[in-house]
């Protein structure tokens, strides 16, 4: 799947979490909304398997880091936006992900 992103010592490698959730097949070909995406740990990992990923995150610094990581990895099917879940106006996504963000 993807490059692992720096995630702090309290979080495991993203590949480990994706496996625990059922593997890449859960996300393959899907339009994914990543809510509270942080620095893009999950969104960057999904960028090679999901059809499209929109990641929203209120912290502009985290979004800047995520965008830089996506550019560096040459990932084109993921977009990052500064914002809150409550401001969402998009529709038509297959899966909305709250990864360590609904707490």
């Amino acid at each position, binding site marked *: 799947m993807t490059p692992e992103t720096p995630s702090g*010592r*309290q*979080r*495991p490698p993203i590949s*480990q*979490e994706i496996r*625990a*959730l059922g593997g890449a097949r859960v996300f393959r070909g899907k339009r994914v*909304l990543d*809510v*509270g995406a942080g620095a893009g740990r999950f969104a960057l990992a999904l960028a090679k398997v999901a059809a499209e990923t929109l990641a929203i995150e209120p912290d502009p610094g985290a979004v800047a880091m995520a965008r830089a990581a996506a550019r560096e990895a040459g990932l084109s099917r993921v977009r990052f936006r500064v914002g*809150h*879940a*409550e*401001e*969402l106006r*998009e*529709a*038509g*996504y*297959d*899966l*909305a*992900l*709250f*990864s*360590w*963000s*609904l*707490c």
Partner: protein
Amino acid sequence: MVDALRAARRSIVPGGLVLDVRPSARLDARLVARRRARWAPAGRIRSSANARARDRAADAAVRELVRDRLLRVVRKGTYWVLVIPGPLASVRETIAESGRFAGLVVARGTDPGARYAVMRPIQYAFLERVDQAGARGAEVRGRTARSRGG
């Protein structure tokens, strides 16, 4: 949290999924030590009151949408992840700095020179968007209540 979940639900197609993944504060994390090529129990780490309160609030938000028949649980569970590997002093330091942990209880007889790590419980739920007349009514009621300051 409820508003974030409602907004996310509106953004997915009927039958689409909301996936909620987060550390569980209901189960204590475990301190483990590397012994004979295996991780063995070496203590436990209590969740902070703040972490437990936030988890209860998140659980309540999910329950509200399930109760209103806007979402239904299709799969849920818990998995454990190994984090913060290092010497005991380093693990202690990270735990002390974390707002989610309240304290570390190290079992007797542990080897301070060993390699340690923390096993954290992560809970997840796949929630399917439900669309039916009753559910739509519930959503309208929710919006009305919020617009009244509810």
